[in-house]
């Protein structure tokens, strides 16, 4: 690729731009101020003729392209050129559609457009064409950790697509929890009876598949590297360790049954005839379709009570607050074990809400036909009376306390995820937080840990700077936080699946594990091409840093939301480009500004904000800078324009990859350049965060909370820098925020630094 930069700027006159703007002046700006070698106007730039004109220039050597037309979100199929760096000045949605078409507004509208042309010309000077990361690996083998239903499914499905798999199982056999079941809940029409688990067939398929290597009695004792080039130590129970290289990892480490010993009031541990659902499966397997016998004396059970939500959906200490989802169907299935063997057995399910979503309803109806009794009630206690058990409960329908006798009681307890070490329990989000905590001598960074869910044993033993396992989301589950993107873990190329991700039944686990296999395969394919994974999938840019200027402050290694950056032995950051999601949070964190991407850097944004033509103090034309998250705030501003919402002409808007990438130098540069206000617009943070880079907007918020000191040293009002949480739907609100800013400036006055 040629290093010589040749810049071409195109000014579109379509969609009213030619009528509303003085395009000749814009051309002059691009030529004279922007120093573009080629500047062309076009009546309709996105049509075939306009695109051909641009392509011809590219073919003749233009490699820095500036499209001065509509938003970067519009006409992307037209402005889609290979092997160039491109920027787009948003003159349509961002200028003429957001400003009134009046004589009064003509001057300020033109100033806006002129500035956006200047900004684009300034930005392109610092952009280069991203090339694939040379450090990428191309190992295409998958590692699946856990040999239960989820792990076996991932292995089988990946192998069916032609990929090699190493399947590691801690115990001596495959099958996991499902292998302990007598039967499973049905997964197809007519959803009426328990069906075989299918585990032996899966084990047989794995055994016969040449692409799958099984390692039993083995655990993962070390994981290092990155997608396409993970290195993993697999250690046998005997202590022998083998090192394997794999391209992606699926963590299917499953769940542990909630310890029913925590429920003595329900009789567990007091009578052998109180069992959990796993205990009942063992009894059913022993009976093998015959009469189920109770553990205490081997008597055939004639009455059985199932207590739903035992130790779950509870606010009691040591119990689970969530619902494990499968247990209603599981109890129905287990009640059928009794009814199918002998219809005269009394089988009662005591529940508060019966949760059988989807076709579970058919299964529930089938149980009703089989005369399983369903009682809406809350159980307070299980006691022994003679050789029978007494279940005391409040009947919620009759609203009275009552009791029933049973030979056997089954507690429907929950799933506790095997998600390894809770690395965030003691890990701070940011360096600033560490310092703040040290200053205040408080330990607020030690966030509370869910009771009963912490596993001390690591599953993956990652050598990552940020900890040995994947971050947990809630209640110890390693789930994704994103509704639209259920597989997005915070460690690139490592996907969790099955009940370690969230509570689930076999049917869901199989589907989930198939999806996880797809994501792992995708991570392998993309990393082998040096491309980013979700959400900037396909992005070739990656962070680059100038080691000689690094002060080893560790901000980047601590703050990376994806644990992509390790530290070398001598304390420098070690970027694992294939683990990087390209959000730029490291770039925003770096106090000495040495981290950059080929097409996005401290300079590309810094140059834009400095390129704006700053009116002097007496012009009564303030300037506000908006740094807008490109995924939510920026589209909302676009849509405001599309809907003719008006906002102040004094604003200049720069899209950023994520607010996490906002370096505070941009704020001081803006203040020194004479902007009257800087507004950051990013996504909601906190528990229900909407930042798709997880921590970006939160980190920006923490950083901005410290900017006040800087402003004070400059003798500037703290109101001049504000950080807003906005959403993509804030089509009315964002113009209002911009207009409010103009009012604030009226109150506090102009920035005195103008003209310096």
């Amino acid at each position: 690729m040629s290093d010589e930069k040749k810049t071409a700027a195109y000014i579109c006159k379509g969609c009213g731009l030619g009528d509303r703007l003085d395009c000749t002046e814009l051309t002059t700006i691009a030529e004279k101020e922007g120093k573009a070698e080629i500047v062309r106007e076009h009546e309709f730039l996105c049509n075939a003729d306009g695109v051909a004109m641009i392509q011809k220039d590219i073919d003749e050597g233009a490699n820095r392209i500036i499209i001065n037309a509509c938003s970067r979100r519009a006409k992307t199929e037209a402005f889609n050129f290979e092997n160039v760096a491109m920027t787009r000045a948003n003159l349509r949605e961002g200028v003429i559609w957001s400003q009134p078409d009046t004589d009064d507004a003509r001057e300020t509208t033109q100033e806006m457009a002129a500035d956006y042309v200047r900004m684009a010309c300034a930005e392109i000077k610092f952009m280069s064409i991203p090339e694939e990361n040379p450090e990428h690996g191309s190992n295409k083998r998958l590692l699946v950790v856990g040999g239960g239903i989820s792990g076996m499914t991932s292995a089988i499905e990946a192998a069916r697509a032609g990929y090699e798999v190493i399947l590691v199982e801690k115990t001596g056999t495959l099958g996991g929890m499902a292998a302990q079941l007598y039967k499973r809940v049905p997964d197809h029409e007519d959803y009426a009876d328990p069906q075989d688990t299918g585990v032996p067939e899966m084990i047989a398929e794995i055994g016969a598949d040449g692409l799958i290597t099984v390692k039993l009695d083995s655990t993962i004792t070390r994981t290092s590297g990155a997608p396409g080039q993970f290195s993993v130590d697999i250690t046998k129970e005997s202590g022998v360790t083998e090192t394997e290289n794999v391209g992606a990892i699926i963590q299917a480490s499953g769940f542990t049954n909630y310890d029913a010993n925590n429920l003595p009031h329900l009789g567990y541990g007091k009578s052998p005839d109180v069992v959990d659902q796993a205990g009942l499966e063992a009894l059913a397997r022993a009976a093998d379709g015959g009469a189920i016998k109770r553990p205490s004396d081997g008597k055939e059970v004639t009455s059985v009570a199932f207590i739903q939500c035992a130790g779950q959906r509870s606010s009691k200490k040591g119990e689970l607050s969530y619902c494990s989802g499968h247990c209603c169907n599981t109890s129905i299935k287990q009640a059928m074990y009794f009814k199918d063997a002998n219809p005269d057995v009394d089988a009662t399910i005591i529940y508060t809400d019966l949760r059988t979503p989807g076709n579970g309803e058919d299964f529930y109806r089938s149980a009703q036909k089989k005369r399983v009794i369903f009682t809406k009630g809350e159980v307070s206690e299980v006691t022994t009376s003679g050789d029978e058990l007494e279940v005391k409960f409040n009947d919620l329908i009759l609203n009275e306390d009552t009791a029933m006798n049973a030979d056997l009681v089954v507690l429907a307890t929950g799933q506790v995820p095997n998600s390894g070490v809770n690395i965030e329990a003691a890990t701070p989000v940011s360096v600033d937080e560490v310092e703040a905590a040290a200053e205040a001598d408080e330990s607020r960074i030690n966030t509370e840990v869910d009771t009963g869910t912490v596993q001390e044993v690591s599953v993956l033993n990652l050598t990552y700077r940020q900890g040995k396992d994947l971050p947990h989301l809630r209640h110890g589950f390693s789930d994704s936080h994103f509704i639209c993107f259920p597989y997005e873990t915070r460690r690139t190329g490592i996907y969790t699946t099955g009940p370690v991700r969230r509570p689930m039944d076999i049917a869901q686990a199989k589907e989930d594990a198939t999806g996880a296999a797809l994501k792992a395969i995708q991570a392998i394919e993309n990393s082998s091409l040096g491309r980013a994974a979700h959400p900037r999938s396909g992005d070739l840019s990656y962070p680059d840093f100038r080691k000689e200027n690094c002060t080893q402050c560790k901000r980047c290694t601590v703050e990376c939301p994806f644990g992509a950056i390790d530290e070398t032995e001598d304390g420098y950051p070690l970027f694992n480009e294939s683990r990087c999601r390209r959000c730029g949070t490291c770039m925003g964190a770096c106090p000495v500004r040495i981290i950059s991407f080929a097409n996005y850097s401290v300079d590309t944004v810094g140059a834009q904000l400095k390129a704006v033509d700053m009116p002097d103090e007496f012009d009564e034309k303030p300037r506000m800078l908006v740094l807008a998250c490109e995924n939510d705030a920026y589209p909302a501003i676009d849509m405001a324009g599309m809907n003719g919402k008006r906002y102040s002409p004094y604003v200049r808007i720069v899209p950023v990859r994520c607010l996490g990438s906002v370096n505070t130098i941009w704020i001081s540069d803006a203040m020194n350049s004479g902007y009257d206000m800087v507004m950051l617009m990013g996504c909601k943070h906190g528990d229900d965060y909407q930042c798709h880079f997880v921590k970006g907007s939160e980190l920006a918020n923490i950083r901005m909370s410290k900017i006040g000191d800087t402003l004070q040293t400059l003798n500037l009002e703290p109101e001049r820098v504000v950080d807003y949480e906005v959403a993509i739907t804030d089509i009315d609100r964002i113009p209002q925020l911009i207009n409010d800013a103009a009012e604030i400036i009226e109150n506090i006055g102009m920035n005195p630094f103008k003209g310096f």
Partner: protein
Amino acid sequence: MTDIVATNETILVVGGGISGMTAAIEAAECGKDVILVEKAPSLGGRVSQLYKYFPKLCFPTCGLEINQRRMKANKNLHILTLSEVTNIAGDSGNFTATVKTAPRYVNENCTACGACGDAVTAEVDNPFNYNLDKIKAAYLPHNMAHPQRYVIDPSIIGTDEAEKAKTACKYDAIDLDMQETTMDLNVGAIVWATGWKPYDAAKIQPYGYDRFDNVITSVEFERMMDAFGPTGGKLLRPSDGKEAKNIAFIQCAGSRDRNHLTHCSRICCMASLKQTTYLTEQYGDDEEAKASIYYIDIRAIDRFEDFYQKVQDDPKVSFIKSKVANITLDEESGNPVLHGVDTEGYHRYSNPHDLVVLAIGMTPNVDISEIASGVSTDSSGFIQVNVDNGGIFAAGCASNALDVNRSVQSATAATLHSIQVVNKVSAAEA
């Protein structure tokens, strides 16, 4: 759209809602050639019509923006809108799918400048808002429409209105002579993601959806909250435009009912719990704002339970365990009155409300048996996924009543199954 190259290594995805988009993008990002067929003029499907998602209360358009950007960046993906698959012949690894494309009357020159919409005066029902309001007959389907291209409603073709639109367009983007086209695509595997539709509420006779203006469905209620919805983001009841503050939610409207849908539609409990939060959003602490949920069981499984507990703590929300027997109208106030028995304690009630929202059940959008043979469906019409359907893989709500998260999970799984087929084809041809 004549430049489509499809081979038996191509994956065809039918349906451009969240499931179909997901399947198409995920496959394309694995390097596969994908054709995505969508019946509507733009992608996004039913989730793009939702105001918020449970349990995070975030906005569906946020994920839609990410998915659209992924699509814009991917050259392996070819999108056909206004298109339907009408027939599938052949077998796994070698299908012929017949695709019928309706005329948009607008070509790729369209810049979405809006001049045609300004020129036209005729209005048509707005399907994006469930026909609760009108839209210009030359329109962009919604703010986030992708492709971002206008549509001319067929009803004005041949009229002066269509000519007005054509004259207004400076970019030669309007072609009033466009005709319906049909083409056969050779593809290797098919992901079927045609989604769901709300059960026909009028069939639940005792609830009077077709008789009472102030009985609406949950999907319509979602549109009311959107600033670009039929009520401009206000909860105004249809009969008199009065603010609806005392709102009833009836669960299992059509679902878990032998007379209607036998399955549980899974999403409706969480959807109603979510919708109760809209009252706080609209009315703050106003004591008149009340939500009453009439339910059989609240099915907030796994960590959705957290959300249920939060809603239970909201003093605005009460829960009545009851299958509502019927609804009558109080003529004077326009209020629907709900009658039934609260089974917790067996109390009879006759409760008036400003507005009733039916948590309407999900039923499959398309009967695949009319299009392809050999695909197994269950008694509700959903495609069964745990059986061999020979190279056709159901994703999302074509396979079951699923929420968004589960739909995406299902679609991602279906993607791998389709890739297994085309990888076998390419291995055989290598």
